[in-house]
């Protein structure tokens, strides 16, 4: 017996793209269609995919996942992630190839599938549990634990239509968290709920990992892939294009997609750089060295900048301008004369360690300049990269300060009683 939990071999899935005739021009054609249309539509509906355009959502996917691996599947929209999940969850059948699943499988494409608003929390636990493949006896045994995990003891006999969305999600996730599959297939379900509950769910995922269960996890959230997974697989146009340690694969993914799309991943490549000497890439990193687009107030950030090659002369400077969400310049920094760093011509990689950031919650951007102070500006890269401050609570009061009403900075302060 192999030690593989999931063995995917040459998997392919073909869909028909709904090709409906459009743009009827004459009354005659409309009338003809009115008469012959039903027959044509009948043939189209009874034999889907025969005449319509075809599209391979997955093609030649071969992947072996060993028992105990936690594999993150990443890829841009339309790469085939959902199709792969649907095949593994037996919702849809592959067109070619096969999958062997060794062990009891639970799949969670969403939480709370089958919840009925008119039923109480308790009733929905039974219904949802049964839908997810639990036996009645198993649900009865775990009922107290599920209710406690959801922190809903008081409301368990209230119809869920009266629940807040947070309560609903907590209950739904609790049922899912008490599944005991050998193979778990999940789709982005961690991106729900408040921070406290999300941490609880992450903890539960770590438990699964330490219990040696096999997990297949599809996500857009590269941070959780890096935190939770032991391996990452990147899909692109229905094929596997990368497979390896999550840190490396997610890095390559970020380079491939977020940058090109100008998306705020905390890193960017210049799309239309000038032909002469220029800045070509920027990364915002946390102190742990991870590329990030979100920081908290008080964090220290590292800005990494790369130039196109050898600079025209020695002793030059790199500057940043910090912009707020209204694109107003709110701060400035430079290798010199603010600091006394003079870069040599052969330096191609510049690092600025910045912080602790005194910024309030909101979105910010950096523009960069490279040149000789007060003499020459070789390159100006406007709004090169965006980032957000997710949490600003420097005094630990539990009330976040946002740049919508309260400005972009918080200055350290003390409040006393005067005489």
């Amino acid at each position, binding site marked *: 017996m192999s030690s593989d939990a999931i063995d995917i071999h040459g998997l392919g899935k073909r869909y028909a793209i709904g090709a409906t005739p459009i743009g009827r021009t004459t009354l005659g054609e409309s009338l003809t269609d009115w008469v012959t249309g039903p027959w044509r539509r009948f043939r189209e509906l009874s034999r889907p995919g025969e005449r319509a355009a075809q599209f391979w959502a997955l093609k030649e996917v071969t992947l072996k996942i060993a028992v105990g691996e936690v594999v993150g599947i990443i890829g841009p929209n339309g790469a085939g992630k959902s199709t792969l999940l649907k095949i593994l*969850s037996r919702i849809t059948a592959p067109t070619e*190839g*096969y*999958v*062997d*699943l*060794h062990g009891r499988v639970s799949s969670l494409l969403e939480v709370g599938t089958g919840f009925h608003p008119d039923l109480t929390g308790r*009733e929905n636990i039974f219904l949802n549990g049964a839908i997810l493949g639990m*036996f009645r006896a198993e649900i009865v045994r775990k009922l107290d634990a599920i209710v406690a995990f959801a922190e809903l003891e008081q409301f368990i006999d209230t119809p869920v239509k009266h629940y807040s969305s947070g309560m609903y999600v907590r209950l739904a996730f609790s049922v899912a968290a008490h599944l005991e599959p050998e193979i778990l297939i999940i789709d982005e379900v961690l991106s729900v709920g408040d921070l406290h509950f999300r941490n609880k769910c992450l903890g539960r995922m770590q438990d699964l990992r330490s219990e040696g269960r096999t997990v297949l996890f599809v996500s857009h959230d590269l941070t959780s892939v890096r935190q939770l997974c032991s391996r990452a697989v990147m899909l692109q146009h229905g094929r596997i294009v990368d497979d390896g340690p999550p840190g490396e694969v997610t890095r390559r993914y970020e380079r491939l997609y977020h940058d090109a799309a100008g998306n705020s991943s905390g890193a960017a490549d210049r799309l239309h750089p000038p032909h002469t000497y220029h800045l070509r890439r920027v990364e915002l990193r946390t102190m742990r060295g991870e590329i990030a687009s979100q920081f908290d107030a008080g964090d220290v950030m590292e800005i990494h900048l790369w130039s196109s090659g050898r600079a025209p002369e020695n002793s030059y400077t790199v500057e940043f301008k910090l912009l707020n969400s209204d694109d107003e310049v709110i701060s400035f920094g430079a290798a010199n004369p603010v600091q006394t760093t003079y870069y040599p011509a052969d330096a191609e990689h510049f690092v600025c360690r910045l912080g602790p950031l005194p910024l309030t919650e909101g979105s910010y951007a950096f523009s960069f300049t490279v040149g000789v102070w007060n003499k020459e500006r070789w390159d100006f890269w406007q709004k090169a990269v965006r980032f957000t401050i997710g949490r600003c609570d420097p005094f630990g009061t539990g009330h976040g300060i946002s740049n919508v009403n309260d400005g972009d900075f918080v200055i350290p302060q003390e409040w006393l009683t005067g005489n």
Partner: protein
Amino acid sequence: MVDPPRRTLRLEAPRSWQTLNLAELWAYRELLFFFVWRDVKVRYKQTVLGALWAIIQPLTTTFAFALLFGRLGGMARHVDGPYALHVFAGMLPWTFFANAVTLAANSLVGSGHLISKVYFPRLLVPLAAIASGLLDFAIAFVGLLVMMAVYGVAPSASMLAAPLFVAGTIAAAAGTGILFAALVVTFRDVRYIITFALQLWLFASPVLYPLDMIPARWRLLYAVNPMAGLVAGFRASVVGGPAPADVILVSSASAAVLLLAAVRYFVQVERRFADVI
């Protein structure tokens, strides 16, 4: 720690000839129970009269038809015993059948969300819709017993045969419901057909008139309608009336063939549901 041997499940392209996996259906029996339980529980939530509707619905149609056909149409003359009782005894299996078919036909499309998110044998969905009507049937049956007492009709030993006709009606409803459910997924038009098909079907079944109003030489052809023999047989077993064995036999065979053909078609197309629903 000794692990039980791991089961391997192979997922691949559907073969051209699908078979019904009875073992899997059995393994999912608890889910069927939960679906039925949910339907029953939800059906009468936030209603004032609750399960009484199970009696009121066939009762009002019965009295409307008794007035229309019995009094004005003079149909009462062709029936032995009270005409209203005759109609109600026929209305019972018919109401179950018609409701079950309607619910089952729309069940898959109504559970589209579930079908695109979770795997389970799809057959459970129409089966649950049909099974959830059985409770209504049982309640209405109590109503029938009350009505018999009111009219002074004593039940006889033949009532022991009634469960057989109920089983036959379940098979006919399952056959029709499963077939329509699968068709509705692909052809939404079928929804509109069901409503008037059931109206016509009612008049093609011996609910409002006794079976012997059909000329003897057409009777076996008439019995190809499974509800013909089943309604007549059910009524005969409970309140009395004509129930020729040949008619019942043909109707039962017809119901069985319908059920087998429907399940056959269903398993053939069910792998497609998630893609087209």
